[in-house]
């Protein structure tokens, strides 16, 4: 039916061969509707499809587009205080403050933010594997593990030191728990590169290296660890310093949102 094809093409709706007439909303990735049309269909069915196609723009407008998800894991918490930045400043207090600050900036940029915990005491019963399971189930396009240190100056970005393997769709085959990040390393390196560029533009010294961290190695999402070190006379707890880095990170994630590597995993669990 050439005139039907011409009609659909005029509407800007792609036509594919299949065994029936379907109009599906591929809202999971980009929200663009796709019409699958069988070549030998009855006229009533084609007419119904045409009417449905006319109604698609309205349906598209009504379908809520899921905001992309960012997972923030403030490292340590509960009895695990982490490093001592100063005599009375444990790492867990700094990471949770930075996570909450970053959460606000991400929400106003249209992201949905999943935090592993919101206060240091929330993490009392949160194990390392529990954090990773939460992250892997979140469907995040980026997983950020937040750290703080009193030693090395500036911001330090880390990706997993696991050997890079070919990117694979998660769930297609079992993976070792502590090597689940391997298929995601290429994407994680790309994310780290974007974050480094953005933080550098914010006039903050930043390094980008690879390391062996248990929490990174088990994640099935583009994942990086960000460590805030002291800067000049300011500790990592300094609000101005945190705000500057958080805005740079939020800006980089806004750019990452449209990046082809910003994909989510099915969620490996232990």
């Amino acid at each position, binding site marked *: 039916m050439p005139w039907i094809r011409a009609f659909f093409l005029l509407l800007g709706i792609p036509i594919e061969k299949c065994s029936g007439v379907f109009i599906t909303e591929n809202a999971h990735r980009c929200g663009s509707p796709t019409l699958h049309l069988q070549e030998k269909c009855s006229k009533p069915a084609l007419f119904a499809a045409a009417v449905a196609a006319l109604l698609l723009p309205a349906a598209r407008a009504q379908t809520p587009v899921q905001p992309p998800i960012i997972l923030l894991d403030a490292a340590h918490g509960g009895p695990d205080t982490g*490093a001592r930045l100063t005599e009375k400043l444990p790492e867990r207090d700094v990471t949770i403050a930075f996570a909450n600050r970053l959460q606000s900036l991400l929400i106003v940029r249209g992201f949905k933010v999943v935090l592993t915990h919101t206060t240091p005491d929330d993490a009392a019963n949160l194990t390392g594997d529990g954090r990773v399971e939460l992250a892997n189930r979140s469907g995040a396009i980026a997983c950020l593990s937040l750290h703080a240190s009193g030693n090395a100056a500036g911001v330090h970005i880390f990706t997993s030191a696991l050997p890079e393997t070919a990117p694979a769709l998660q769930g297609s085959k079992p993976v070792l728990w502590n090597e689940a990040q391997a298929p995601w390393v290429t994407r994680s390196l790309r994310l780290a590169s974007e974050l480094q560029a953005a933080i550098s533009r914010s006039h903050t010294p930043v*390094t980008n290296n690879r390391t062996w961290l248990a929490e990174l190695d088990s994640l099935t999402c583009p994942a990086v660890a960000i460590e805030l070190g002291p800067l000049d006379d300011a500790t990592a707890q300094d609000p101005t310093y945190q705000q500057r880095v958080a805005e740079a990170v939020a800006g980089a994630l806004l750019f990452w949102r449209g990046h082809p590597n910003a994909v989510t995993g099915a969620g490996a669990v232990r």
Partner: protein
Amino acid sequence: MIPRYQRILFLALMTLSVLMAGYLWRVHQRTITRLNSISNAATPIEAPSGDTTQTEAVTFLMADDAAGTITPSDRQIALPTEPTIRLRAILERLFSDYGQTDSPHPLKFDGTAIADVFFLPLPLTPPKPPEAAGKNTGDKTIPSPTAFTDMAARNGYMAVINLRQSFADAHPSGVEVETLTVLSVLGTVHANFPQVSRIRFLVDGKTRPTLAGHFSLDRVYPSSDTTLQSTKETP
């Protein structure tokens, strides 16, 4: 009246007793002299052989916290020939340098950092007996799920570095500082022991999840060049 023969006998016995007492005193003195000579002549520790007196160039991969780098640095030091003692001496020297107050990667700890070092030939699984190996030649090889991590482990040795707990407990906490310490050790082993393909850490003979709360210390690491050029982007 004492008969004459009794007086002669008494004097003879008396003289004999005095002679015997003198003899015993002399033997006693000789014994004391001999025992003293044994305790004083404690054998000194054998002086190091000529092998250790010769210095040689050793490559250390030195970490720098400020720059976030690990750079090779050659130094002339005297080393023994036995591989495990040699590796231990190299690592002790590395940590000794980090223990200096003006070190670019300062680590504060008491005593020594290394408890023990030993090498294990790879692979760690026992070899199959000849008849069993011949029987399985036609079998399909099933790839190990950890194949990619075992790839480098087919040959060479695994160096097991047993750190002291006092060193690990005193190590500064932080992703960057812990990573630089371990990468410095891995790179130094790689530079001086090419026969080592894998490295594993223990702390007082046990596995430890992290070095100081961050870096995973319970893995088996590949021995590789860990030189880190500066990736620091400064405004």
